[in-house]
């Protein structure tokens, strides 16, 4: 399936990245060539009943003790944000006031 400009713009919307139409054409072309190669390789492999492997077997999660600990570095954490106000992260309104 060819990835056109329209589909690419939709993907960029889902990924929350602003791109213009020229960039969309450029990215779509590149994505097309990657997908072309990948689909051809994947088609060589029969669809057998192998279990998908999301994580390697050695990685079995373990839990640490559920204890309250303090992380008293509020100023350092806020220092990484571009905009803060009154000791809080500051964002534009998430609800359209109109």
């Amino acid at each position: 399936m060819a990835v056109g400009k329209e589909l690419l713009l939709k993907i960029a919307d889902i990924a929350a990245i602003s791109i213009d139409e020229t960039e969309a054409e450029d990215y779509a072309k590149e994505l097309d060539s990657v997908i072309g190669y990948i689909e051809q390789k994947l088609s060589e492999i029969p669809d057998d009943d192998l279990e998908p492997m999301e994580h390697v077997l050695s990685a079995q999660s373990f839990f640490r003790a559920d204890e309250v600990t303090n992380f008293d570095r509020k100023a350092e954490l806020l220092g990484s944000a571009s905009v803060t106000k009154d000791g809080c992260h500051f964002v534009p309104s998430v609800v359209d006031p109109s």
Partner: protein
Amino acid sequence: MSILNMTIKEISELLKNRKIGTVELVRHYLDSIRRQNPSLNSFVTTCEEDALEASEKAQKLIDSNDNTSLLCGIPFGIKDNICVRGIRTTAGSKMLSDFVPAYSSTVVNRLVEANAVILGKLNMNEFSMKESKEGNIFGFVRNPWNKEYAEGGLSEGTAAAVSGDMACFALGSDSGGELRQAASFCGVVGLKPTYGLVSRYGLISSASSMDQIGPVTRSVEDCAAVMSVIAGQDPLDSTSVGRSENYLKDIDKGIKGLRVGVPKEFFGSEVNTEIKESISRALENLGQEGAIYKEISIPSIKYILPAHYIISSAEASSNLARYDGIRFGHRSPDARNISEVYRFSRKEGFGREVKQRILTGTYFLSSENRERLYYKALKIRRMIFNDFRKAFENLDVLVAPVCPEVACKLTDVSGDKDHLLKMHISDVYTAGLNLTGLPGLTVPCGLDKNKLPIGIQIVGREFSEKLLLQVGYAIEKTVGKLSPGEGDKYGI
């Protein structure tokens, strides 16, 4: 006394015998950085004052106690995606160009507890993704063996720092082979440990199921020394595993009876003849030491690349969703509402290759393609894992090239998209271990006709690092340590 290109073990002995002091040692590396970094471009941040302060503390410990750790007072560099509290950590991205972490990674905490001394942060490709020249905010790293040539992944500063004598060792990360490729191109030792053996807490994620932190060192013994400190379970990383041991113990045990497999798929016509010859010589030397080697076949190797590309893109698109311009990272000054904060900040903060990978990953994970492409890649991952596991039923280790070519000239890669594709294709020799979680050690095994280093890769079962280091030690013994010459010999 010249300490140029000395190993941790050699320097540690000099420190303990009071032949040199820790402050003098740190000054040696700071001077070396000042002199060489403008051309090699390995360090992106140096911590001169903190390093001198830490070295004074280490000296006091050495003066008052004969049983300090091997790493006490030893200066090291850290790849710029491993967090250090209070020190700018960028992951090579404009997105994080002002990010100063409020906490340190577990690996850094462990090394600092062992009184190793942080020299600074090392250059890297943006979020560890290979990219063309215009992508990285700090530019290319040059190869200490010949400054006209690139090192591994174009912008990996770890190996160049160690090879160029700007740090005694370095901490790197490996998501598709960048740590091993850079080490191989720069003639130093690099280890990608088994997934889970080293805590990832404080590592800026790229592909979480494949990322792993590992050491880059001047000798196999040094690699063992660093691993002995950084490996082991961490309550702050639920995927870490409690398997640490003393990797230095029995490192010289020998390899008599070692069963070595040579997968023929890794030695095709695309591999440079000089690399093949160099690895053959290393195998013959192992044979003389008592190892038995034979050719084997792992057919699924040819599917490593598509599986790795799909999974790493998908995981990157998910991981990098956290960069929204609010809590940390670049925030667009032009955004007028919350949607524009996300969209504009991500447009401006990420480089071209990273945006391409996010878009590609989003495509793979979309409901129309998830089953057809993403889950298929996960099935191929299982197939590759099963094939490697089967190979290890009758073998102890495998050997492979790290790359099909030695380092390339920087003039050949500037902004060249075809070259970028070629670099991705060369990941086939390394990315299989990221897919399967298996460990891989690269050790220098020779030089090509242009005096550029060639590395051999030794692959083992899960948690077989001790054996890999013993094999690496045996190879190193026959080859000898490679260094880009004393002083100005190679233009350093």
